[in-house]
């Protein structure tokens, strides 16, 4: 039996989404046979904003990313991504939109028959009009961003889990997408490697200011993102002075039993009265 749904800590559904939002979910429902995983999900992600999606395992966090990409279709509701209605567009019409989005999969999903270079260059190679030198330059630039330029000629099987995740980030950012979707980028990694990944995500957020949806079940990752900012001098993130906020808007969305039970920033999260969220956060 599912636990009773707690009242919303904030009311994201009641505020109409801004016209120019990067991602808009409106009353999205999704069920697999008799199991309704998403029960009326509504939220929006503004341009340049980073939103962290929390929830226990099986709460449907990853499904939200797949729905945003159009890899899955909802049973009802409407999803708009970068101004395009994803729910009403057939598969053929979504490829152009997807080329504007970067996705980092939970297990990296690198093409194991291709080298690191070809994995990162995959999207660029599809754009046939790009000269080879330009492809090479951008692949190196993306790999340099994740500090893995030396792995160019290796196969994914030769990389560690953390390195694979970093190559997946390089593949996602190589086209300079307008929207980035991270599916548990630190899942299954040790704390040191997780920190490296979060460092890269913070770097991406602060340098390119790309709108991002990040799914995680690790609270410490989200709090690190909220309390740190990328420092160009050291090429790493550094803690923000107390009382200051990150320049790039960062918000949190918590799912429970298929519903959004919280959608707000770090201060609203810290001061919520909701017992479930307080227990979850503590």
């Amino acid at each position, binding site marked *: 039996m599912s636990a009773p749904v707690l009242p919303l800590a904030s009311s994201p559904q009641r505020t109409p989404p801004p016209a120019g939002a990067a991602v808009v979910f409106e009353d999205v429902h999704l069920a697999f046979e008799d199991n309704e995983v998403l029960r009326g999900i509504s939220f929006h992600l503004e341009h340049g904003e980073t939103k962290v999606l929390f929830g226990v395992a099986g709460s449907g966090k990853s499904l939200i990313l*797949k729905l945003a*990409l159009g*890899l899955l279709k909802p049973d009802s509701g409407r999803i708009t991504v970068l101004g395009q209605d994803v729910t009403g567009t057939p*598969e*053929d019409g979504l*490829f*152009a*939109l*997807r*080329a504007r*989005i970067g*996705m980092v*999969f*939970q*297990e990296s*999903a*690198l*093409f*194991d028959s291709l080298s690191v270079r070809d994995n990162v260059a*995959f*999207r660029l190679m*599809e754009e*046939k009009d790009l000269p080879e030198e330009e492809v090479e330059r951008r692949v190196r630039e993306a790999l340099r961003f994740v500090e893995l330029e030396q792995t160019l000629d290796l196969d994914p099987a030769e990389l560690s889990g953390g390195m694979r995740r970093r190559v997946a980030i390089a*593949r996602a950012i190589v086209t300079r997408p307008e929207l980035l979707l991270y599916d548990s980028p630190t899942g299954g990694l040790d704390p040191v490697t997780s920190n490296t990944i979060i460092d890269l995500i913070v770097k991406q957020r602060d340098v390119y200011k790309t709108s991002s949806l990040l799914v995680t079940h690790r609270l410490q990752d989200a709090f690190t993102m909220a309390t740190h900012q990328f420092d160009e001098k050291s090429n790493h993130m550094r803690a923000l002075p107390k009382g200051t906020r990150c320049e790039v808007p960062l918000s949190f969305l918590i799912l429970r039993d298929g519903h959004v039970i919280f959608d707000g920033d770090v201060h609203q999260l810290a001061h919520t009265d909701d017992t479930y969220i307080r227990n979850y956060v503590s």
Partner: protein
Amino acid sequence: MEYVSPIELAKEKILVVQDYTWLSIHSVANLFRKPLYMGDILQQADVIGVGSLPIVVLTGFFTGAVLALQAANTLQRFGSLSLVGQLVSLSMVRELGPVLTCLMVAGRNSSGMASELGSMAVTEQIDAMRALGTDPMKKLVTPRVVATVVMMFFLTIISDLVGLAGGSVVARFLLGLDVRQYWSNAWENLVYQDIVMGLTKPVLFGFVIATMGCYYGMTARGGTQGVGRATTQAVVAASVLILVLDFFVTRLLMALLSFR
């Protein structure tokens, strides 16, 4: 064991047929929509065509050889041993060349496609491809279908020739027949209809091999066990469908080509 109602089972089967039909139609329709992945088609042609050559040659040679042996046994009773060439050539070109070659390639390549695409499906690589803005049907399925159809055509020709050569070796060394007589008997009795039938079949069977392998691969679920299951199903389904289709195609072509 979980009980499944007959209606649910029927629905499931109809859904499989519907999905397979959809994949088959799209694999062909994609040929007329950009981009066409020529590099992938050539790579698959190398894997399927060149890679299958040793087994096709071996199968073809020994099929031709054993046909000659079996035919000789019967023909000798009627004093018509010299007709061995004709029997081998008609059997190889019309029936055994296409069917056996396709069955061998189905065992090798349907399974290969199902396991390769199945592994990609269960490790989210297919989803990653879609997420990167590339249609997996165009990038993965169409090149395999085109390459298999084209290569099956040529592999069958090779198999027929090697089979005739196998028959000639038996005719010369075990039956003591004249090789020139064997070849002229084999060649002169082949008519246009035999060639059309013999070369129509591998095109259709090649399509079945590739679409079955791709269908079971693309729809594989449930980790490594699911990939194993998809591989087995692809080979079984492709092999059975080839044999069933062979009967109907033979019947149809016989009617269409006004067979003697």
